[in-house]
């Protein structure tokens, strides 16, 4: 433990929610917006989501087609590397398992690169986006996901820091190796587990 900061008492362990990973605070009703690029204009008519790369059946869904898939919801917490967390939030959309199941993973597949309409990318091991751990979501608290938070649809990988939950997601590229995405090339950790405080490279 670091030497205490002179005069800093903090908020005390009693007031600390056990759902908060180390170094995180509860943002309450706030939902900060932190993105590195221009917010795109949503266009549902041209929207699509693709699974490509090492799959048996590369597949692209339109907005209507992806809504026709079996729905799936997440209730729980999200954690941003900039130290805010939101507790007890709800998203709904479709499980990444469903999408990968339709496309059919090839045996050599080990990782995915999520990509967005803006050119943003983020890399994830397959194990972090399968077995009910990842979604493509278009509703937040039963309302359409706002564009500043990634709407019409974003990736949701809530057990990792939220830069992994790519806003304005347009697809997953299935790979047989790991390669760094946007923030991972720009100083952030390759995996980003909030409970291990994997914030930046070297953590």
């Amino acid at each position, binding site marked *: 433990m*670091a030497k205490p900061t002179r005069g800093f008492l*903090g908020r005390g362990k009693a007031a*600390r929610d056990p759902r908060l990973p180390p170094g995180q605070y509860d943002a309450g009703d706030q939902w900060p917006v932190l993105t*590195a690029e221009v917010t795109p204009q949503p266009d549902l008519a041209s929207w699509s989501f693709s699974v490509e790369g090492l799959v048996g059946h590369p597949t692209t869904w339109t907005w209507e087609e992806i809504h026709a898939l079996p729905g799936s919801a997440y209730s729980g917490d999200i954690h941003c590397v900039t130290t805010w967390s939101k507790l007890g939030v709800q998203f709904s959309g479709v499980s990444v398992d469903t999408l990968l199941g339709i496309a059919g993973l090839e045996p050599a597949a080990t990782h995915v690169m999520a990509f967005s309409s803006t050119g943003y990318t983020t890399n994830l091991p397959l194990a972090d986006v399968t077995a009910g751990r990842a979604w493509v979501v278009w509703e937040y608290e039963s309302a359409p996901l706002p564009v500043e938070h990634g709407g019409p649809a974003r990736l949701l990988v809530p057990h990792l820091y939220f830069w992994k939950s790519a806003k304005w997601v347009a697809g997953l590229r299935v790979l047989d190796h790991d390669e760094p995405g946007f923030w991972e090339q720009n100083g952030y950790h390759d995996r980003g587990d909030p409970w291990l405080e994997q914030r930046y490279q*070297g953590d």
Partner: protein
Amino acid sequence: MTTGRPAGDPWQMATVTEVRPETRTAKTFRLTLPAPAPRLAGQYYVVRLTAPDGYTASRSYSVASAPNDSGEIELTVERLDGGEVSEFLHDEVVVGDDLEVRGPIGLWFVWEAQSPAVLVGGGSGIVPLMAMLRLARQSGQSDLLRMAVSVRTPDDLYYAHELPGPETTVAYTRAVPPSATRHPSRLSEQDLAPLLLPDATAFVCGSPGFADFASGLLLGLGQPVEKIRVERFGPTS
């Protein structure tokens, strides 16, 4: 990729060597680093406060000073009501205190004074842009850079004595200084059009609302979307 990171423990204990007000709600903290590292204009440091019981609170703050060999950095911090870290820094920290920091961090919102840049800042969003302006001036490359800052009133302008120059313009939205020729109004395409250098990368920093508004102005003036880099200062505290 690990430039700017001391080996091993990324945290170091910096010493506060100067505290000075920028506005009624912003202070600049000069820190001396025991393990300074090369950095780029636009990067940030994380400040971590530790309570006697081990509880910690961390926030990221942009460096306002230009990259240099002094072993010092300057962080400008806006005091946010209820902001656990910013209130502590404003209300408790004095010269001589130690503060735990790590950095520099971020390789995207950075400018290396090698290509044209247009900087657009709103309010406290000026801070990382100031590091770029200072770098341009110190390295004699002001011709590569143009900067527009939007603030409500003259009292809200950071670095007010240092900012004026042929490469900078200030848009006051609510009240203007007596000498001003521009009426108080929102930042507009007219303000930005003269700043758009050919082939420039635009750096936009401010609140999410300001960032989207300013990005829209730049797009309207023909700035390519892939040449707009954005840093949104969320309402984090």
